[in-house]
């Protein structure tokens, strides 16, 4: 597959997700049902992305103490809820990750 075609296709699909609601909302109103379904994509997509990266190694569940991503994610979640700061969330999470690895 040519890189050019890849870039055009992926860019077009992504831009579609950005422009479609802007175009539609000018013409029609979002039904409450549609708004509800759309809103669910945010937690569903993010959790479906994050959970496997944190909890699995090479596709298999890894809940062992070797997996430093778990304590890092837990610390990040606590800091995120407490501080509402993105920089602190990432900083605390990475620090936990490095420390955990270092201490093993």
């Amino acid at each position, binding site marked *: 597959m040519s890189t050019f075609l890849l870039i055009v296709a992926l860019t077009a699909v992504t*831009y579609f997700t950005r422009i479609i609601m802007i175009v539609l909302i000018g013409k029609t109103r979002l039904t409450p049902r549609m708004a509800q379904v759309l809103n669910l994509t945010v937690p569903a997509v993010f959790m479906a992305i994050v959970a496997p990266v944190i909890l699995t190694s090479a596709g298999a569940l890894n809940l062992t103490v070797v997996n430093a991503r778990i304590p890092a994610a837990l610390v990040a979640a606590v800091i995120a809820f407490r501080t509402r700061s993105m920089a602190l969330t990432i900083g605390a999470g990475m620090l936990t990750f490095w420390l955990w690895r270092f201490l093993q």
Partner: protein
Amino acid sequence: LNSILTPRAQFLDGMRAQLPTLAGVIPFGLAAGAYTANVLNSAPGAIALHAAMFAGRGQMIAVQMLDEGAPLLLLMLAALIVNLRNMVYAAGLAPHINHLSPRWRAFLAFFIVDTVFAFTIERLRRDSASAAAATRHFYLLGSGVFTFVVWTAAGIIGAVFGQRIPGSWGLELVPQLAFIYVLSGNLRTRTNVIAGMAAGLVATAFAWLPLQLGLFAGVLAGMAAGMLAGQREAGT
């Protein structure tokens, strides 16, 4: 107080609003650029995709699937599903840019990403009720352009020098932590928590499937669970 803001002042304020996101955007951009250049075996190609798509998660997943030999249509489907959330953001931003010309709206739409939406929407709502309303799209523009420039610069550095970033730094973890931050703001209703839990469980259980099928299953399961929970909550 700040009742009338010039476009320039709005633009600069918008840039400033994005400063806290640099901790996420820079490492994510580096990692995405490096990974993409590695798979495409081309730094210029990786940089072009990185800048044009301007959607890190969709880029990472599509490139990973490409590496597994998936056909283009599946890659497009993955990019579509992972970026569906842009529709939520666009719907939230629409009232603030609807008064603009189609060309302006089409241009601003390009800058819709998680962090731009999350760090602009409150101010846009506040401005919409004040004399600053007329210039508030420049706030959105400043945020978007700033994020785009930082994202692209990080991608270029990642694509060119990426092979020298040691894997032990765990940079691939940074975007996950940024998503945990976004989730912390989103998981505040019971319906969203149920949707998130179902999505995470199913995606983890099927993480061994090829071509990101576990991710698709997780998203579908999460949305189905959320819709069921939402119906029950509505008392029907």
